[in-house]
């Protein structure tokens, strides 16, 4: 029995134990929950190394698990973010109903993600992929809100993707006689052209759904915002990265091998760019923090997809670095939202304002992650975005640069909205009683915020594993110092750091800001929202004058034509059409026994008439 077996057993047993221990004691349940996430995480990093393989033979198929540098990188995201989210969830879930249900699916999701990363054969990859889908689906419908639409939409998209993948897997098995990923990759150059195109397409369909790539993203905003925030942080932060993980593998090991791959990559890169633009625009429009972050996640995943699809070394580096950063800052932001939801009961910008003094630590975490999200130095997001631009420009994707640049600039708008809407602005009496979230929720957020800072300053901590991961995939053949291709990074002894010149600029900027703030504080006077008059009118009590009401109206009017066509509507149209078709099919069963008898005769006669063709 290998360590990987033990890890999976702990996950599984822990999930079941956690579920049932809730019947005995809530504290015990929390302890079991934490243990079944943290213990495997510790075991994994302490004992599992590359080269060891664990096998399990099921139904005549050998499932093989092992780790390489590339999957280790993503395991870092999953287990790191997962542990943080697990600690956070203890606080977040306190006093909520269906706790066991939530914990159970949380653990299973982590297990499934680890399973995906550790899978060496395609069947266990698929199994864990499906477990991940249904466990995340179950959490998505946790609060029972509009689940027949949101939940089913998520599951249908996932299932379509997963089934496409299943088809690809069995076709590969038919062609190669093996379920091993490596044999698929080795055989790929020998396949017929149509297979060379269709198999990656089918895989990308599955990965594209999870990574919320453009025409397949419609489930994401609803599902992200509907799940409990403690889960959404791994849903958006880690689970969507499974799509990225798969995409990288497909792109590197398959699409890069064929001459038609160029067009593939272009299309995916453009889809990523469009995803980013659409996600950003919709995010600006939202009044609910959950929705805003959900759309923002879609947009950020768009950047990542663009980065990895460009195909240059720097682009890949940028995409993967952004993936890690996205896990950090989007995880934190969802946690922040969850903390606010927990303390105030709502996440609507129009209702909650001025929490900066009530929840200062939360604010700091939010501030840092917003800075990272917006790509402002010295936090990690900057490094990633810079590399992305650089790779796009060096590979002559000028139009794409404009799209990305547009959406990343527009992203400032929602970043600002998030920060200002919740924390700044006037204090409302309604929220006077609000307290800081419990330490168990704040500490994970702060840890991750610090991580963002560290990674922004020393990006090499992540860039080096990315480099060796890509080497394991065969993307780069020897230990190239990928980061050297970017002008923003500097090697300092054994570390890769941000260019020092930036720190001078930042330092001056920060000094200036502190100076201004200091000056401002002296003259600050706290008033209520209603303490204004415009054109001599005094606002009524029930008028909502919160900062974010009607936020960016002119901008939204300007981009309205672009947003009128929702892809969602097309899907709904298809679904409605299918349902009426099915209703029609149902009417075949008229309820009259004689009609059924006639069907029998019709069947016989038709078969008799065509018997020479059929037999």
């Amino acid at each position, binding site marked *: 029995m290998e360590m990987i077996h033990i890890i999976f057993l702990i996950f599984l047993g822990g999930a079941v134990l956690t579920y049932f221990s809730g019947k005995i004691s809530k504290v015990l349940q929390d302890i079991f929950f934490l243990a079944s996430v943290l213990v495997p995480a510790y075991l994994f990093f302490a004992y599992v190394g590359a080269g060891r393989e664990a096998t399990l033979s099921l139904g005549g198929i050998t499932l093989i698990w092992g780790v390489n540098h590339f999957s280790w990188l993503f395991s870092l995201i999953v287990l790191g973010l997962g542990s943080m989210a697990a600690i956070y969830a203890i606080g977040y879930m306190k006093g909520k109903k269906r706790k066991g249900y939530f914990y159970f699916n949380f653990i299973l999701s982590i297990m499934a993600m680890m399973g995906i990363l550790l899978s060496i054969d395609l069947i266990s990859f698929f199994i864990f992929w499906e*477990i991940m889908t249904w466990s995340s689906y179950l959490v998505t419908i946790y609060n029972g809100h509009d689940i027949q639409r949101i939940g089913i939409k998520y599951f249908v998209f996932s299932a379509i993707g997963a089934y496409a993948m299943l*088809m690809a897997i069995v076709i590969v098995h*038919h062609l190669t006689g093996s379920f091993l990923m490596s044999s698929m990759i080795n055989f790929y150059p020998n396949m017929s052209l149509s297979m060379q195109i269709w198999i990656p397409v089918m895989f990308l369909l599955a990965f594209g759904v999870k990574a919320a790539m453009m025409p397949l993203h419609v489930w994401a905003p609803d599902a992200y915002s509907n799940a409990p925030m403690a889960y959404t942080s791994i849903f958006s932060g880690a689970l969507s990265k499974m799509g990225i993980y798969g995409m990288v593998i497909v792109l590197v090991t398959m699409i890069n091998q064929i001459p038609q791959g160029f067009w593939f990559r272009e299309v995916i890169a453009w889809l990523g760019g469009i995803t980013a633009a659409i996600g950003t625009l919709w995010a600006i429009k939202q009044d609910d923090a959950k929705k805003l972050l959900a759309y923002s996640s879609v947009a950020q995943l768009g950047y990542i997809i663009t980065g990895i699809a460009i195909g240059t070394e720097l682009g890949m580096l940028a995409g993967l670095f952004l993936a890690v950063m996205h896990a950090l800052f989007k995880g934190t932001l969802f946690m922040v939202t969850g903390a606010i939801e927990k303390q105030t009961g709502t996440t609507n910008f129009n209702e909650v304002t001025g929490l900066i003094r009530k929840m200062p630590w939360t604010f700091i975490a939010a501030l840092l992650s917003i800075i990272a999200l917006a790509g402002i130095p010295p936090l990690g997001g900057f490094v990633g975005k810079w590399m992305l631009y650089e790779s796009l420009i060096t590979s002559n994707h000028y139009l794409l640069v404009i799209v990305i640049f547009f959406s990343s600039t527009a992203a400032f708008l929602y970043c600002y909205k998030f920060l200002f809407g919740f924390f700044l602005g006037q204090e409302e009496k309604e929220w006077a009683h609000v307290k800081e979230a419990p330490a168990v929720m704040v500490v994970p957020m702060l840890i991750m915020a610090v991580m963002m800072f560290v990674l922004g300053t020393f990006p090499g901590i992540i860039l080096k594993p990315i480099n060796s991961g890509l080497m394991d995939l065969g993307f780069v053949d020897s230990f190239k110092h990928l980061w050297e291709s970017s002008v923003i990074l500097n090697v300092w002894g054994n570390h890769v750091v941000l260019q020092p010149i930036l720190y001078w600029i930042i330092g001056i900027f920060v000094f200036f800001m502190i100076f201004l703030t200091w000056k401002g504080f002296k003259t600050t006077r706290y008033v209520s929202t209603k303490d204004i008059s415009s054109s001599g009118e005094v606002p009524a009590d029930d008028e909502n004058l919160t900062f974010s009401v009607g936020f960016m109206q002119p901008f939204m009017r300007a981009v309205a034509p672009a947003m009128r066509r929702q892809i969602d509507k097309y899907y709904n149209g298809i679904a409605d059409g299918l349902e009426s078709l099915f209703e029609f099919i149902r009417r075949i069963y008229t309820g009259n026994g004689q009609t059924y008898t006639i069907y029998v005769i019709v069947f016989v006669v038709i078969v008799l008439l065509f018997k020479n063709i059929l037999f």
Partner: protein
Amino acid sequence: MVGTPVLFIAIPLLAAFLIPLLGMIWKELVRIVPGLVLTYLLILAVNLLVHVLAHGPVVEVIAGWVPPIGINLVFSVFSGFLVTLMIFLGLLVWAYSYRFKRNVDYEPALKYFLMLMMLITGSVGIVLTGDIFNMFVFIEITSISGYGLTAFYKGRDSAEASFKYVLLGSVASTFLLLAIMIIYSQLGTLNMADIANKIHLMNPTLKIVSYIFFVTALGIEAEIFPLNGWAPDAYAEAPGPVGAAFAGIVVKASVYAIIRYTFTIFDLSGAFNFLIIIGMITLIVAETAAIRQEKLKRMLAYSSIGQMGLVLVAFGFGTEEGVFAALFLMLNHAIIKSLLFFSGSYLVYNSKCKYIKEVNGMSKFLPVTSLLFALGAFAIVGLPPFAGFWSKLSVMTAAADSNMILIMVLVLMVSVVELVYYLRVVNRIYFFKKETAIEPKKPTFNALVVMIVLGVIILAIGFYPDVVTGVLHKASASLMDKSQYIHHVLSLRQ
């Protein structure tokens, strides 16, 4: 001595004739004796199956006349596996329906258990027999028990459902007899192995016509699309456990019959593609009809029909892999659909119309039943790590190896539809508010035990499919080996 196949028929028949007498002694005996008989048969079946796995098929002759003169029963790995499965399910159905309705009088109880036992016996007979006319007799035993069981409840529309069943069942027997007589008039024999041995001598036109009639007749019982008008009604109106018995036992027997005709008896090359076509149409129509259903049991019925279509498709690949996949599907379908019928019956127990919306919020009142229903729903749509996944995987593998890309696409698309309607119901059970004032009924102890046993089996197969794959591989090999079958039956000497 491991027992012989004929006991599967003789013992239940003897018990069936005895039960009315025993009922005069102690009324509870009419409920207990069928269970005892089924338990005995299960032990017998398992024993025989173990024996057959080691030593090859057991062929039993009746009345001392060797085939092709007399009737014979064949307990090969393939038929033995199905028989074991059916009897196991039958035992579960019996245990579940023991005191299903507490207030049922003595007379109906007697008749219910009699007919249930004969339903199982008839299906077992269909699978075991090696004679085409004998199969007709067993089909009729099964059908008549089915008619009676469908119309068991008063006050509902059960008589209407049963009447449709009778109508189509009679048409089925007409076609079956026409087909049998064509075969007999040409080959002068009714023994399957003998026919299989001589079928190549037959005039192709006659052969094809008789095959068509066979498929039509058996297709009515096996719920192939244009022939299955009776099925949704009968499933919906019959008592809950009977629905499970239909889905798990009767349909399996009919599908077995079609498969026996296609694989062993006839040598038509086009028959396999024909199976794929009708199976595919059945699958698509049934699953798409299911999504718009308003009644729970009707939805389950359509789903069951669709699954049978998929089974036919898998058989239609004609490869050993396909047969393996089909058998796996049949096994999973039998277990999972029974669980769904069992738990679904309690979810809508006291409701008059059994609407799907009446399951809303039932998880608060029936937590275990709801959980098991959800487990069944997850398993039947083929989500890992539950039992349904492995059969779906094997179907897909078999399809890929037969180069049936279009079939794969269609099957997977239909799977999405299936997923949607099952998830909708599960969502209702767990996340909707209870709307109606219908009082939920707690499952009886034995029903709960039965459901939990089924749930455990689903998990066991899901986590460790090897518990069944070995037998399934041998069973599919035994079906594919036609000459071996003929040899085993015809080599018997007086």
